[in-house]
């Protein structure tokens, strides 16, 4: 089940419960009077919500009698649990029952007085239902608190299915039960039916206790597991027995039954928070998280305990409205949110907020829409458009801004690429290390960067207080302490980001090495070509006595130099290219002295050869052409080149006079040709039957000696 499904499930539970509460609250007869207990034990009107009531019946008027029942301040009490005894509660319930019957009549006579004036009688027809708009803010506040409880509980449960989050979710469910039922009976206009009131009150009591018991269970297992499973079971058994006893009115005293368990739970929670804080003293992460969470639980519940439970136990009036006390319980959830955001409470991080944020946007949209339709009374379609506009213009930018603030530190900043490459291109190891340290400091703002131990991947250590940086081929392993100047802990996002930086640096270093290796190889190759070809040819020129020959060799040397330069510019030489150039040049020379060229070449286009073989091939063909031009008196010159079985076969022939053996042996050029072919592991054979025939075989693959 994906996390969103869990969250949607929680929302669905809340929506059903909230609709139920709304239905119960609005399905009651309605007088249109908001009444509170007055100082004199009577009921005072504080607001008139109907326009068809007598003029004098205004805020400040005292209502003394409804139907045949004398009204008392106790009838409008918010929370019957604050009554001192079971008898008082039972009497209250009986009066509520009687009032409900009166209000169910089509017409109700009301006796009321205004200041010192005499009592007046008015007959009012109660409406069959109470409109939703007339419900007081307290109703909506308690609805909101209940929703927050279950939805935030569902959020944690959706993301983290373990025992602590289960108890947390359970506490949210308890809170919802408690506050939603209180929202109905606490904000009733005057009376509710006995059975409804009993059920809602029981629901409220059960929910409140479940909330407390779930928090106790949570603190028994989180962050340290200090309770055995049976302890938790015992907590629930005892707690539920107390609930049952109170509902059956079997407690020694009503106030003790109603608020005793709550007070006990509060002290247990306090002790557990203290115990957990003590046990986490060596685990700063858990301690920090617990600090927020425990403090907010205590704050949130203590308001309830000290303004309502304790006064009730002492037989005093409640010091705050129960509905407002519920509002303060929301503090718990603020604490939770901060705990998650800053200290990965429940092991959740910033990312977990994203789950809810678009959903929240949707809810804001629906809420605004409803507000515009029902409160501002705008037509449905324009209302939806306006709501959409508001969400688009306000909520989404706000969300993105907050999202940006929250996630800024783990984003990949493209400007870091430049820094990483700067490090890779630094020559000096010390400079590389100092730049790397500077980059880490820029990215994570740790309080210190020290040398660390060797690890293979970036790793969070000590609960996020340290982030270990693996070594690269240029930098030693490092250890960063205390992210962001100590204001936060390292997160998994930081570790991932660091790992990417390390990988990037490693890649840049490898690329640089590869490039340097390539450049070195190329320099070596050029040096060898210069030495083998140019050097050897200049030496030949130096020791040659023939002036014309000297010139020829120098011209060849220039061509070879050109090869080396062109090749250095990164264009590989294919054999086909070399042969084309050679053919062109040879034909040019032969045409000038009236010799025909017959050139057949059959080599694959893709065949690439090194400069040395190119030079050998060129030397042989040039030498052969020169011999033909100089000595043979030939009319045709033929060259056949083919690749067979990994060898290059060259067959050069002319129809000239041929050469005598002694002459060919003495000729430096021919000796040189043979030596070159043999240097490649090949062979050169010269025969002179009809003209001269030179056959050369050069292995293409193993051409390196």
């Amino acid at each position, binding site marked *: 089940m994906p996390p969103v499904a869990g969250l949607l499930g929680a929302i669905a539970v809340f929506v059903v419960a909230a609709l139920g509460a709304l239905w119960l609250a609005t399905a009651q007869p309605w007088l249109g009077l908001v009444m509170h207990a007055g100082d004199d034990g009577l009921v005072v009107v504080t607001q008139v919500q109907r326009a068809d009531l007598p003029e004098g019946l205004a805020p400040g008027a005292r209502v003394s009698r409804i139907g045949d029942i004398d009204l008392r301040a106790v009838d409008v009490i918010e929370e019957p649990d604050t009554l001192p005894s079971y008898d008082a509660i039972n009497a209250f319930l009986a009066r509520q029952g009687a009032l409900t019957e009166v209000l169910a009549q089509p017409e109700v006579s009301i006796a009321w007085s205004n200041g010192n004036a005499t009592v007046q009688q008015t007959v009012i027809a109660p409406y069959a239902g109470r409109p939703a708009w007339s419900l007081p803010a307290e109703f909506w506040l308690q609805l909101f608190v209940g929703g927050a409880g279950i939805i935030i509980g569902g959020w944690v449960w959706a993301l983290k299915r373990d025992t602590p989050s289960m108890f947390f979710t359970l506490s949210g469910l308890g809170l919802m039960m408690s506050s939603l039922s209180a929202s109905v009976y606490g904000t009733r206009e005057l009376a509710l039916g006995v059975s409804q009131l009993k059920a809602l009150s029981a629901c409220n009591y059960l929910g409140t206790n479940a909330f407390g018991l779930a928090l106790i269970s949570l603190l028994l297992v989180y962050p340290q597991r200090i309770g055995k499973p049976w302890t938790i079971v015992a907590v629930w058994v005892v707690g539920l027995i107390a609930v049952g006893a109170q509902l059956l009115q079997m407690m020694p005293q009503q106030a003790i039954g109603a608020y005793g368990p709550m007070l006990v739970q509060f002290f247990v929670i306090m002790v557990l928070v203290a115990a957990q804080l003590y046990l986490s003293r060596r685990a700063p992460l858990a301690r920090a998280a617990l600090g927020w969470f425990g403090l907010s639980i205590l704050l949130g519940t203590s308001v309830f305990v000290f303004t309502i439970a304790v006064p009730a136990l002492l037989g005093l009036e409640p010091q705050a409205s129960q509905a407002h006390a519920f509002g303060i319980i929301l503090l718990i959830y603020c604490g939770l949110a901060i705990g998650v955001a800053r200290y990965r409470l429940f092991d959740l991080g910033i990312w977990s907020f994203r789950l809810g944020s678009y959903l929240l946007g949707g809810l804001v949209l629906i809420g605004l829409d409803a507000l515009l339709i029902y409160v501002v009374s705008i037509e449905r379609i324009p209302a939806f458009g306006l709501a959409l506009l508001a969400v688009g213009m306000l909520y989404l930018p706000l969300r993105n801004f907050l999202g940006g603030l929250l996630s800024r530190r783990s984003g990949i900043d493209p400007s870091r690429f430049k820094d990483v490459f700067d490090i890779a291109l630094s020559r000096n190891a010390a400079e590389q290390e100092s730049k790397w340290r500077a980059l880490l400091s820029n990215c994570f703002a740790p309080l210190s960067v020290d040398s660390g131990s060797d690890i293979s991947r970036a790793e969070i250590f000590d609960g996020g207080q340290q982030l270990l940086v693996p070594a690269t081929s240029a930098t030693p392993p490092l250890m960063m302490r205390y992210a962001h100047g100590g204001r936060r802990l390292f997160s998994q996002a930081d570790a991932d980001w660091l790992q990417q930086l390390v990988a990037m640096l490693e890649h840049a270093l490898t690329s640089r090495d590869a490039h340097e290796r390539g450049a070195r190889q190329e320099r070596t190759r050029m040096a060898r070509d210069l030495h083998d070809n140019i050097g050897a040819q200049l030496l030949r020129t130096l020791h040659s006595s023939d002036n014309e020959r000297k*010139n*020829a060799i*120098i*011209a060849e040397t*220039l*061509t070879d*130099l*050109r090869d080396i*330069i*062109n090749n250095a*510019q990164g*264009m590989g030489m294919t054999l*086909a*290219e070399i*042969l*084309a*150039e*050679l*053919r*062109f040049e040879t*034909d*040019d020379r032969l*045409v*000038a002295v009236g010799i025909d060229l017959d*050139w057949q070449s059959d080599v694959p286009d893709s065949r690439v050869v090194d400069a040395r073989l190119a030079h050998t091939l060129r030397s042989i063909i040039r030498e052969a052409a020169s011999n033909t031009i100089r000595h043979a008196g030939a009319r045709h010159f033929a060259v056949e080149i083919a690749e067979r079985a990994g060898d290059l076969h060259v067959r050069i022939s002319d129809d000239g006079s041929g050469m005598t053996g002694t002459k060919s042996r003495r000729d430096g050029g021919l000796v040189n040709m043979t030596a070159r072919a043999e240097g490649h592991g090949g062979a050169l054979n010269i025969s002179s039957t009809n003209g001269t025939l030179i056959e050369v075989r050069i292995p293409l693959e193993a051409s390196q000696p």
Partner: protein
Amino acid sequence: MIARNLLIVEDVPEALAWLTDVARAAFPGITVAAARSVQQAAEKIAAEVWDMALVDLGLPDGSGLDVIRRLKARSPETMCIVSTVLGDDANIVAALSAGAQGYILKGQPEAVVHRQLMQLQHGIPALSPTIARRIMEHFQRTGPVDGDIEPLTARETDVLTMVSKGFRNAEVARALGLAESTIATHVKSIYRKLGISSRAEAALHASRMGLT
């Protein structure tokens, strides 16, 4: 075209002397002036219109490409010939696209250079297999990206392909059933289009980079 005056831009004194001799032999009665740097060449170009110029690419104070551009700017009629020792392809193609009509390799025997100069004067430009290959690559890379670039005709492509395989103009003419002078016309046209296309390409690059 009969050239009346010739500017030789060359920084190596021996080469300058040699080229002057070869040029005088090839074009009897021609006036030869010499420049040893881009600076001197610029002065000579400003002073007078040249019918023909032999330009070395590697000059002490800059590139011969600059000189070619100046000559062409002064008078598009000037026949610019690149003279180079090593004849590395990239530089020659660059010079051709800067407006040079041909090139000679100074390392070649005097007779060959003499013949090449004569041919150039008669409008037969030199084209070696490697240069042909580079030009083909250039046109393939440029492609029909811009209406301003005139693509090579099928015949021109045939000529380039054959030359790149090592056939001389005469052989190409025989193989394609054309006159040798027609091949020379095709080569000149290829050089001209090379100049246009590389100018268009440069403009395209410039506009892509937001320079214009």
